């Protein structure tokens, strides 16, 4: 079984981004970039499926600027077998990414696509579901456990109120939640090996996909700041503040 794992290059989760003074966006110049944490979990899950014998080949795909190569190398260091970069400088929105991925799926014919549930930059949480719709496949979103049983995937999903287990026919889409696994660190030998793995570069036009954005960002601004609070000396003072000042209890 071939597994496709799309990976996104995003601002590292430890960075607190700043809004640009002209309100045109957030400042990502000279900011540390990393693989989206949910995508890392997706790569790890694919590697575990391969280690268990359920997957035979793992293909990592990334769409975006040339530097996404680093993200693909990182995925290959964790264990992906090869990478595909769909290179473009155009701002890619989830629908466009889903269309690009559909074109790659049509070429590569994987039985499973594992994606992160959301990217921590745009927080959209859309691409996996959109790809499933375009392919007419079943989707298991926010997965915290995946078992491949013959030609189905039994997936436990995080839902409001707890957990729900569904069985999805393959080929299918799975999106990862935080508790699916803890990604391994790429070891130095694996990082070296990853440099030699195959990485193909395509353009959106090669895939026949129109990636023109449908949404225009008019403005990006700072959220309202909370006014600084006070430290209280003890529990009695806290109760007094809550009762008499904030009047919330």
């Amino acid at each position, binding site marked *: 079984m071939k597994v496709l794992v799309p990976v996104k290059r995003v601002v590292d989760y430890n960075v*607190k981004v700043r809004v640009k003074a002209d309100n045109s966006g957030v400042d990502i110049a000279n900011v540390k970039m990393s693989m989206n944490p949910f995508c890392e979990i997706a790569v790890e899950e694919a590697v575990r499926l391969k280690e268990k014998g359920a997957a035979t080949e793992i293909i990592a795909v990334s769409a975006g600027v040339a530097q996404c190569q680093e993200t693909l190398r990182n995925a290959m260091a964790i264990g992906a077998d090869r990478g595909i970069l769909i290179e473009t400088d155009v701002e890619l929105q*989830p629908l466009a990414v*889903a269309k690009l991925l559909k074109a790659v799926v049509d070429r590569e014919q994987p039985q499973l696509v594992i994606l992160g549930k959301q990217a921590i930059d*745009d927080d959209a949480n859309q691409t996996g579901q959109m790809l499933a719709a375009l392919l007419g496949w079943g*989707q298991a979103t926010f997965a915290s456990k995946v078992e491949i049983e013959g030609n189905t995937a039994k997936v436990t999903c995080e839902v409001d109120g707890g957990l729900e287990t569904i069985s999805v026919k393959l080929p299918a889409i799975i999106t990862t939640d935080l508790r699916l696994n803890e990604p391994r660190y790429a070891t130095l030998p694996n990082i070296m090996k990853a440099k030699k793995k195959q990485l193909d570069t395509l353009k959106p036009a090669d895939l026949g996909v129109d990636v023109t954005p449908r949404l225009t*960002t008019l403005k990006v601004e700072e959220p309202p700041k909370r006014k600084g*609070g006070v*430290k209280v000396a003890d529990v009695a003072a806290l109760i007094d503040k809550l009762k008499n000042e904030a009047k*919330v209890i």
Partner: protein
Amino acid sequence: MANLVIAEHDHGSLKAATLNVISAASVIGGEVHVLVAGHNAKAAAEAASQVAGVAKVLLADGDAHAHRLPENTAAQVVAAASAYSHILAPATPYGKAVAPRVAALLDKAQISDIIKVIDADTFMRPIYAGNAYATVKSSDSVKVLTVRGTAFAAAAKTGGSGVVENVSPIADSGVSTFVSAELVKSERPELAAAKIIVSGGRGLGSGEKYREVLTPLADKLGAAMGASRAAVDAGYVPNDYQVGQTGKIVAPDLYIAIGVSGAIQHLAGMKDSKVIVAINKDPDAPIFSVADYGLVADLFEAVPELASKL
């Protein structure tokens, strides 16, 4: 044109989040219709028809909707979509599973987690864990939106006089089947709708301590209970308790963060609370930067004292 709200429900009643989405649809303007895709869901449809501002309820009642599988819900929405300029769902796991699927089937963009309606094409939404707010304008003829519940007051449950119209339920997609659910039973208020939330982090140390220390306080306050990701990952409490960028977004009148450090991903889920209290033994914990009242103390002493003195 009218707006279609995809109801989240349990067949017998509406989930609270649906009421916030109905409000958002009313702000956009135009008639508000609600789709209830369910099984034996007449009661949920009737409840929807009573909600203030609802003109019509589409009830798609059939086997395919017994477990609210997103493939089936999305197909049902698409079957009705041609009459609508806006299709809205709650930004909950259910809404997030369905809305992008609907959008892609219609070849439209989807706008997630809107917190403000600027006009019929333009919406504000948080990005980067709420560290920035983006105003985005759509050039699509149909807008598919998910709505952040805390940003829109719940519509009144009564006062509406919508008509319920039966629509034929779609056939099951056949690609996905429900196996089982493991839902947390709780007498407490729903996190997303609670007035007071007592939330615990890794500082509690274990699931036993989480319950032993926090339950008496939550009981005294009639509060819902929440947690940080670290507390959920460590197995103190189920996933459903997680507050944050990738968990639940809450904005109660009072949020009490206990043994929570205040990582940006946690703050993203609670910083719009009216009043925030933090109890943490580390005076430099980032949670104090958003807390109205901070108490630097050992939680194992301070929290029982707080519970007993209330």
